[in-house]
């Protein structure tokens, strides 16, 4: 089906189903219950899930297949964002041209950075990409202020008159897809549950499904095999008459374009772009996502991106009062003790939890969440579980 074998196709169907039904799946708790704060089914967060999913899928094409660890991928996301917002400020508020511009500019920038950085491998490559990204950040922050808006970044203002969009005088432009506002939402109330269906989310989700589908095709193609060969043994590659450099460069540019797509989509959703998107911590974050989910696996990066964005938005909102509510049934002493123990790991301290989970994954579970899922499936060793495990193994060619 669609040029995929049965197992990959099933994986794609699962991903499509999950993303399409996300507004339901991510809102499992009734509005009035105390657990409603764990609901992640609001548009802003759902958009982030899929957009950073795209970013991580692209990063995985580079790191997962070729083993080249880039510590500067956020630069491409940033360039994509700037290109997209300029397209919207100047030409049209339709998101499609903006996103295309984001992809193109990120791709060109990735070609330049990759051409130079890929002349080195190992840690040298990581440092070179880091240096380029930090340079881009510093320039976007200071010298390039006329283009990037400096520290405050760029937004769509009342003075922006995109030539192809007919705006009323004084009207502030809004991102749209052929007239459909990105912020349009349809709310469905079912008893105590409220589900939000947001047009922006669904557009981003369609892009993610396309990106995911393309990544499966790349993983299964001769090109993908060559990339894994680069990771496995470059000496043999060269002595088999293959030039590893254009292969890695192509992978680098493709993953840069994925980052540009993510950057363009971010702009399509919130119509702003700032230099902090290019800071090296943002590059570190996509590394965390990919490793956490399972590097070199198809679905891993998406899971990792989801897990980290969920923690960032949900775990970080838990404060002391909420903890006290949870442990309220316990005697006061124990309650206070538990709150003291748990508090550093939630709320503002969520990075600590992230760091610990990340270390645990690198140490004990190099295959990330995907490998964890496989192990659990094997543990339950039933027939059904066994089938799933096999499927999961099939989807991890780089293992």
């Amino acid at each position, binding site marked *: 089906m669609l040029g995929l074998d049965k197992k990959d196709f099933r994986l794609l169907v699962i991903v499509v189903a999950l993303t399409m039904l996300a507004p339901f799946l991510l809102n499992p708790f009734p509005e009035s219950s105390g657990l409603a704060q764990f609901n992640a089914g609001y548009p802003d967060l759902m958009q982030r899930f899929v957009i950073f999913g795209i970013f991580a899928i692209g990063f995985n094409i580079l790191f997962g297949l070729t083993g080249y660890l880039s510590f500067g991928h956020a630069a491409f996301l940033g360039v994509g964002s700037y290109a997209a917002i300029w397209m919207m400020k100047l030409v049209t508020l339709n998101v499609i041209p903006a996103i295309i511009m984001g992809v193109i500019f990120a791709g060109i920038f990735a070609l330049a950075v990759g051409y130079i950085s890929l002349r080195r491998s190992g840690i*040298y490559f990581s440092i*070179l990409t880091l240096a380029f990204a930090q340079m881009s950040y*510093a320039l976007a922050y200071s010298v390039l202020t006329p283009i990037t808006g400096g520290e405050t970044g760029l937004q769509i203002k009342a003075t922006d008159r995109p030539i192809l969009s007919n705006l009323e005088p004084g009207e502030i432009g809004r991102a749209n897809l052929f007239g459909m506002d990105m912020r349009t939402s349809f709310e469905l109330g079912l008893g105590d549950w409220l589900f939000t269906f947001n047009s922006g989310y669904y557009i981003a989700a369609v892009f993610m499904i396309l990106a995911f589908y393309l990544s499966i095709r790349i993983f299964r193609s001769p090109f993908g095999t060559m990339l894994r060969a680069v990771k496995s043994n470059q000496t043999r590659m060269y002595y088999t008459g293959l030039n590893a450099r254009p292969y890695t460069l192509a992978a680098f540019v493709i993953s840069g374009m994925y980052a540009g797509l993510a950057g363009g989509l971010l702009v399509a959703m919130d119509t702003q772009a700032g230099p902090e998107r290019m800071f090296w911590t943002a590059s570190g974050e996509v590394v965390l996502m990919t490793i956490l989910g399972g590097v070199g696996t198809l679905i891993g990066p998406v899971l990792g991106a989801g897990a980290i964005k969920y923690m960032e938005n949900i775990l970080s909102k838990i404060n002391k009062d909420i903890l006290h509510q949870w442990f309220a049934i316990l005697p006061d002493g124990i309650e206070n003790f538990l709150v003291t123990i748990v508090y*550093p790991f939630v709320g503002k*301290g969520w990075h*600590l939890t992230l760091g610990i989970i990340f270390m645990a994954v690198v140490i004990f579970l190099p295959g990330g969440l995907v490998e964890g899922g496989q192990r659990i499936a094997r543990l339950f060793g039933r027939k059904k579980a066994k089938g799933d495990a096999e499927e999961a193994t099939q989807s991890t060619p780089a293992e």
Partner: protein
Amino acid sequence: MDNSRSNLTATTGVLGAIVAFFVVVGLLFGVEATILQTLDGLSKGSAYALIALGLTLIFGTLGVVNFAHGALFMIGAFCAVTLSRVLTLSHTVIDESKTDFLGNPSKIQVPYLYDWFGKETGDAIIDWAVPLAILFSIPIMVLVGIVMERGLIKHFYKRPHADQILVTFGLAIVLQEIIKAFYGANPIPTPAPAAFSGSFDFGAMLGFDPNVIIYPYWRIIYFAFGALLIGGVFAFLQFTTFGMVVRAGMADRETVQLLGINIDRRFTLMFGLAAAVAGLAGVMYTPINSPNYHMGMDFLVLSFVVVVVGGMGSLPGAVLAGFLLGVLEAFASMGEVLEVLPGLNQIIIFLVAIIILLTRPRGLMGRKGVMEE
């Protein structure tokens, strides 16, 4: 033999470039400005050099790329913060001689040190918290380093460099978040002793007009301290048996092990030493920049660039590159330069790194075969 000769020409080349650089900037900006910027660069470069030295020690001995090294620098800085807090631990006394605005006798905080040593000595000790923290931090940093090596890094010797980067990157996040949980997210001002808080008229001493080349005392002390520490590490490696074994191990680990020397234990201590060097750099840096939880990461990114420019695994290279980049950064920050090339100060280090890596793949003084996969 061919190698050492080409190294020699490389070193003379680098030295020649440095001399030429100073001649050019001296002519461009005048002698006073050159001296001032050089001083500024050297004190900044000391921090880079110290962190890069530790990174290189760890990389050279253990073959591990330690992304948590910046965190050690930060922990050192927070040792100074902790000590100054410990020294000002106080108890409340009711001072009958003063009243608050309601007319009640006011409560004041009296440090325990006053009780023990009297007010004057107590104040002096509190004032000298940062230098005292040097003594306080050494055992702590060595311990932190050893625990880190035995507890975590040890298990990653045989894993790919990417895994080492990732796990130490995770560790760095954890360490900085722990510090944040205890000390909060805001920078904590930790001043130098009052005696060193002023500036030093460097120009007057050299025979220039007064108040032309003035420079904060503490930064000069920082540079001197850094130079001393670097000298100490080199002397230690050069002249002690321990250092000799470590150097031999850096060159050829297997052979040294074949000689029946327990190289692992020495390498663990080496990690402790590298941690102490980073920690001391952090302790002394507190008066220059108020420590905050992410200072380690900020420095780490630059220090890695320094190490790569110097040449992975080369100790003199790390030190040279640290000072070199510090000085270049100082000159790039000058108003006259920024007018012509705005933003140069922000990117100069990365720019140099890119140029060096592309023209001299092994860095300024790197050896062949290090980190070349």
